[in-house]
């Protein structure tokens, strides 16, 4: 997936900076002539995420799986350099007038690395695999739920019957959690397929030494399916790199130190302090690739007191000084958001005017809502009860800078008489607390390509728990108007109509103070300057290395 969803100004500046750095570093050539990529060498990549328990991203389906699987699996669709959804392994599609029949056309002459042909039967086997309960798919399964039937018309044509029109289908096809694997590989046991999924990508899984690294080697038969969508359309053959050693270094200081010492060439999950320090270094470059889907935001549980009162929700939002906290804790690496959607989503809608820090307004709203008394500790009181809200924090989901941010918000809310109690929890306990409704505030990331994430986050259906107890609508928005707009948007066949419906929904939830947007889902990478040709990412913002090469 040689594509990028870079459209924001900041990443563009990074591209420019890397281009400048690249040209100025080129020994022997003039400053204006770009260097000729060199083939060979093994890239050592260090991921800060937990090691996946299965390399097949259909199983479960989380971000660490997508990061590594993007190197050896490819998707039917992708995002091109302008952020447009374009065919990748597919060559196009026809959608029937009622929107329930989708005819997928597939590129011919593509093979999986085991020699199995990529054809309609293979796509069918993959969608079946995602939907099969035996697979235990979570993310991929959610995205393919509307697929009801599949018919192989000929090797290059597959007809999908949908239970309802799905405007998000092609966005779903760009996600690595719905990537294509060899049907022969899928027929193996889950244990075997998890250890080494077989794809069409530029690299192949060679070996997985658990708890240490995944070894990837170059796929020498690789051809870029859609060169026009990539940064270098002239490079259509195998990757420059001979292989990738994909390591897992969970501790962020160690990870950064490994990059500095040259033990690794690239790291992900770079923390604000490391990024700030790297800015001072000539040997390290920064790649900022915000994740698609939702922005990072604090959701306010509107289903119970005190946030069942919109005035109290607004009072909380007005009482916390987010900008000051973000500035001091993220060293300028995170830009403030005022939208439910990520800045990479073309249909994102922002309203900065709703989120200014305004303790006077907070005080007025709280008085109006009846929280007029104060207790000995200075907190507001109503009917003998303190204005206290609970914020469970996942240590897996919130990086240390974000945890500190919550502490600062806690401190500024206190000045307005709102007590915020926080609790640090491991992932299982955190999801447990959410499932039990033991929260008034929560920050839960959600990555998905396209604005359909709004349906997942704000449709009343999402207040009903899944079998695991999980529900995505943490703000507990239950609004018939919002539901109707989200459903219309899902079946809209016109992009402008879809955009306007989604804008309405976003305006509604922002004005209802169901959420406090913070910043994009942070996704920072640092790499050594000798690693060139970096910058392309998949639609889910995972970096790809087909055009990457190592300079001496």
């Amino acid at each position: 997936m040689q594509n990028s969803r870079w459209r924001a100004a900041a990443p563009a500046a990074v591209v420019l900076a890397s281009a400048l750095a690249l040209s100025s570093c080129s020994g022997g050539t003039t400053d204006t002539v770009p260097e000729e990529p060199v083939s060979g060498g093994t890239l050592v990549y260090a991921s800060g995420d937990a090691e996946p328990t299965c390399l097949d991203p259909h199983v479960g389906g989380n971000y660490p799986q997508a990061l590594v699987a993007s190197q050896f699996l490819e998707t039917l669709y992708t995002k091109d350099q302008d952020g447009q959804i374009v065919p990748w392994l597919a060559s196009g599609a026809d959608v029937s007038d009622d929107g329930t029949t989708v005819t997928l056309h597939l590129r011919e002459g593509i093979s999986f690395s085991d020699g199995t042909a990529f054809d309609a039967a293979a796509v069918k086997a993959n969608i079946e695999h995602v939907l099969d309960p035996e697979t235990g798919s979570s993310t991929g399964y959610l995205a393919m739920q509307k697929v009801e039937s599949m018919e192989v018309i000929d090797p290059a044509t597959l007809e999908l019957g949908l239970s309802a029109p799905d405007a998000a289908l092609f966005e779903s096809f760009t996600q690595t959690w719905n990537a294509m694997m060899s049907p022969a590989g899928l027929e193996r046991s889950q244990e075997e397929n998890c250890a080494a999924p077989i794809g069409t990508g530029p690299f192949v899984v060679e070996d997985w030494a658990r708890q240490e690294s995944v070894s990837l080697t170059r796929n020498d038969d690789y051809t870029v399916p859609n060169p026009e969508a990539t940064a270098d359309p002239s490079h259509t053959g195998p990757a420059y790199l001979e292989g990738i050693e994909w390591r897992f270094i969970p501790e962020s200081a160690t990870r950064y130190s490994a990059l500095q010492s040259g033990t690794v060439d690239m790291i992900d999950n770079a923390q604000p302090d490391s990024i700030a320090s790297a800015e001072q270094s000539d040997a390290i470059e920064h790649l900022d690739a915000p994740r698609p889907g939702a922005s990072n935001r604090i959701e306010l549980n509107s289903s119970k007191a005190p946030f069942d009162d919109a005035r109290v929700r607004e009072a909380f939002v007005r009482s916390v000084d987010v900008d000051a906290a973000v500035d001091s804790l993220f060293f300028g690496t995170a830009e403030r958001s005022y939208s439910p959607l990520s800045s990479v989503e073309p249909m994102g809608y922002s309203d900065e005017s709703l989120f200014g820090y305004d303790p006077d307004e907070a005080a007025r709203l709280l008085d109006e809502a009846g929280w007029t008394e104060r207790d000995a500790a200075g907190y507001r009181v109503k009917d003998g009860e303190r204005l206290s809200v609970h914020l469970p924090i996942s240590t897996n989901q919130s990086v240390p800078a974000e945890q500190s941010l919550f502490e600062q918000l806690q401190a500024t809310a206190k000045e307005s008489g709102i007590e915020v109690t926080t609790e640090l929890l491991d992932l299982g306990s955190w999801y447990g607390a959410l499932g039990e409704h033991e929260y008034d505030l929560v920050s839960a990331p959600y990555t998905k390509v396209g604005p359909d994430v709004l349906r997942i986050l704000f449709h009343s259906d999402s207040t009903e728990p899944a079998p695991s107890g999980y529900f995505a609508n943490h703000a507990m928005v239950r609004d018939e108007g919002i539901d109707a707009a989200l459903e219309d948007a899902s079946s809209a066949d016109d992009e402008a109509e879809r955009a306007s419906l989604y804008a309405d929904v976003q305006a509604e939830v922002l004005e209802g103070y169901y959420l406090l947007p913070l910043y994009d889902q942070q996704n920072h990478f640092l790499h050594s300057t000798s690693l060139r040709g970096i910058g392309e990412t998949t639609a889910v913002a995972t970096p790809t290395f087909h055009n990457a090469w190592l300079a001496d």
Partner: protein
Amino acid sequence: MKILRWLLTRLAGGLFVLWAVATLVFIGIRLVPGDPVEAIVGGPGSQAGPEAFALARAEYGLDEPLIVQYGLMLANLVRGDLGTSYSLKVPVAEAVSEQLPGTLALALLAWGLAWLLALSVALFTALATGPRLSRVADAAGSGLEIFAAAVPHFWLGSVLVLVFATSLGWLPPVATDSPAGLVLPVATLALPLAGFLGQVMRESLATALASPFALAARARGESETGVVLRHGLRHAALPGISLSGWALGSLISGAVVVEALFARGGLGRTLLSAVTLRDIPLVTGVVLVSALTYVVVMAAADVVERLVDPRLGTTTATRAAQPDLAAGGGRP
């Protein structure tokens, strides 16, 4: 006969420990929030469908009543079957045996280094002569030991990385294939243990050197070095040996931190991930293997203790009559 009885007691005790550990893990992991079945279908917060959940529950027997699950687990354990990991989808025995050598190597090296350091400091302070030098050496040794014993692995490891990897660039900050990659993890694990061992050793060495048998040896004209090496050391080593079980426990809990910090594969990291995901068979497997190692080390420490201190094998009457165990041990 005596040996047989000793063996049987040890064996029974060991089995009891293993049973108790398996039971505690079984209960403990169900007391924390989170449904173990989620580990099978993508981890906490999974949004897999109801059929996927039902299927996973049935496949791993999680739809049975708890008491039946417990019984099945014990029956499987008795047959030596550790089950299949929920998250990794591979047999637990395979996952554990893959990670065990890495952790054992780390623990053994750290244990060896800790002994070496502890003995060196104890000997150095004991051999420092002259009233002033000995007082200074004693204070320095004791201060170092208390500091080393008190620092948390995480802090120590981070500081070592900062100094030796980031600033000086002498050693790789993460584990690598070369022996250099082992230095920082081993040192991080060894130093706190060395501090603790050093304290107990130095104290018993001092006690031994002040006892009548040491005086007698000196009176026989032995040099101070000879007294320390031939008579004192055995005394100094004894508490260290009997603390081996405890030391192993500290090494294993330290390995969880050190393996994560230095990105080394091993049981510690496996355990961390298994606990996060509520992967019951994998948690049980790792804890049982650690417990088994503990039982074996305790038994071995018992044997070694008897070799070093022959009094332990004989009656208490002769033990009291034989204060100089070095002499009793028969030196040439």
